[in-house]
């Protein structure tokens, strides 16, 4: 009985030692990850603030005004004006869709082109009705 207990406790001790060993390395790895992430966060924050500054610089009113003037042909933007306000009553309702006559069901027409055997299309016989003439 006693030897079994000894062996058992020795095995438990060894497995606990193995577990502690792994935990130790896992903790160190986690700490390293955290410090890497912190560094990454700091870098990202820095680049975020730089991009915000750049965004503000690119959106400065004087530049936008020049761009609007340059691209007037395509954008047609004008400064805000009191005349651009108007009551809702004056806003036109959307036009109803134009009432065009409905197209009928398309008809497939199939015909044979008569050839003389050498690839030449034969002239229709004289007197036969053509589309140019009123039928």
């Amino acid at each position, binding site marked *: 009985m006693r030897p079994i207990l000894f062996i058992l406790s020795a095995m438990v001790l060894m497995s606990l030692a193995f577990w502690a060993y792994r935990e130790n390395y896992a903790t160190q790895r986690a*700490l*390293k990850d*955290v*410090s890497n992430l*912190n560094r990454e*966060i700091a870098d990202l*924050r*820095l680049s975020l*603030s*730089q991009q*915000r*500054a750049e965004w*503000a*610089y690119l*959106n*400065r*009113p*004087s530049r936008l*005004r020049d761009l609007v003037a340059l691209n007037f042909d395509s954008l047609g933007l004008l*400064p*805000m*004006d*009191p*005349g*651009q*306000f*108007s*009551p809702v*009553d*004056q806003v036109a*309702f959307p036009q109803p869709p134009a009432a065009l006559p409905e197209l009928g069901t398309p008809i497939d027409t199939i015909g044979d082109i008569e050839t003389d055997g050498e690839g030449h299309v034969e002239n229709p016989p004289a007197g036969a009705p053509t589309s140019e003439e009123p039928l």
Partner: protein
Amino acid sequence: MIRTPLRPLARVLSAREKGENPDHIERENIRLRAEETRANALNRAEGRLLLLGAAFFLAFCVVGVRMGTLAASVPEEPRSASTGTEISGGRADITDRNGRILATNFSTFSLYAQPKQMVDPEHVATSLVKLFPDMNAEDLQRRFTDGRSFMWLRKKLSPEQMQAVHDIGDPGLLFGPRDMRLYPNGHLASHVLGGASFGAEGVHSAEVIGTAGVERAMDARLRDPAQAATPLALSIDLTVQSTMAEVLEAGMVMMNAKGAAGILLDVHTGEVISMVSLPDFDPNNRPQALLKGDPGDSPLFNRSLQGVYELGSTAKIFTSAQALDIGLVNPDTMVDANAPMRWGKHKIGEFEGKNYGPLLSVTDVIVKSSNVGTAHLALKIGGERQQVFFKSLGLFDPVPIELTEAPGAGPLIPKRWADIVTITTSYGHGMSVSPMHLAVAYAAIANDGILLPPTLLKRDRIPEGTRVMSVQTAEASVKMLREVVTHGTASLGEVPGYEVGGKTGTADKVKKGGGYDKGKNINTFASMFPASNPQYVLVVTLDEASENSGAKPRRTAGWTAVPVAAEVIRRTAPLLGLRPQIAYPPLNAVSAPKP
């Protein structure tokens, strides 16, 4: 403890029987007792020494073990520090009221040299001069070789310049990280922001400190590490500020003015929506202050706050408002306006020697801008009450606004308040205040008679303010100001739909030595809109403006400042979300929407 007697009776008796001296017994006993005491003391001392030795041994053991662990372990920083709240050492950003960035930080590098580590000082000096033309090669070389071990070369470097310096490839040239203040909008709102520079400088970092404007006035808030992550929101609206600067710049050119200033104030909150002073500067590259000459000619001069000039006729509304408030007159009371008026040796006349008299209603005194009529009103009020009223409007103290320049820009008040001072100040002469003072006082009229302290910071909670006049007086004054625009001196100020009300003011500049400079004037238009329910106050000031389209130059505010102000209102009011009040034609069969 049982004490053994020194002369035990039994032994003494037996000794006497034997014929011995009993004193021997006593002496023996004394010796034994002394020996016992000595043995006890020795024991105790040994015990104490042992204890002390053990304590020292333990302490040295602890030190030894600690040294051992320190020597055996790998050196590393504690890494499991929590990263919850963000505390950055940087300066807080400044944004406008809608969160658009006005000032932010940018990482860059500074350049310094350690000449003792330099390989080829001559080559470094010549290469640096190629990169930075303002440096002097001989000077640099002399300083590289005179035995110093450290010198600054450049406070800020662009990435391109940094690469070029890297390419010189000398180990004596080194870079230090720097946080630099960046104003992405350039000239816009430069007088409000002020500027920043480096304070205490080290190799690894430098302190950024504000040098003027909000940057300096709010320096402690901007540098507070606990609030570094929350930007400081100003009351300025970037879009309105930009529009106003654009219009004023055009107006300044058209009216041949030397400078211009504009202030737009929200009357219900006291927030400054826009504050422009032209000419302006680039806060990224703040120019040096002028060392000689008039500081007013420097672009650093904030005309809207530091430009302390005589108000001109814009002050007349204060006199009439006070007369109404005290109950001396009502808007239709006729007052004496017979020009010229004589007071002692002084003669008070009207513009271009006109005479609006003999009698004018109080409304017409304002509409026609009659000096004589205002003078009579002021005499009725009296100098003392007039001073109290001006003080309550804040015209006697520096404007309490968050700019470093504000406390230094106090008004110029005559020391003695004689009757003639009462008369002249009633129509805005003899006393100098800034456009900002004027805007705040007009905002009190527009805000139903409640004066609010102005601010450049976005307000969450509106302060209570002080009542300076009754609601009825304020309403009557606004009505009079509206009439100035509809059929008075400011007729060019009409903006369809916005019911502008305002008062013009033309004042000659005061000469250095005294007296007035006839050709040089300050034209001001102080206005509020819309008159039926005033929301904003706008003050536009043009410095030495003249309108030259006619036969002779027109120098009055009605011809110069008013049209510029009208254009400012026309452009900014839609941006502020104000709908024009336009009477649309009634709907007819064509325009009415279908049910």
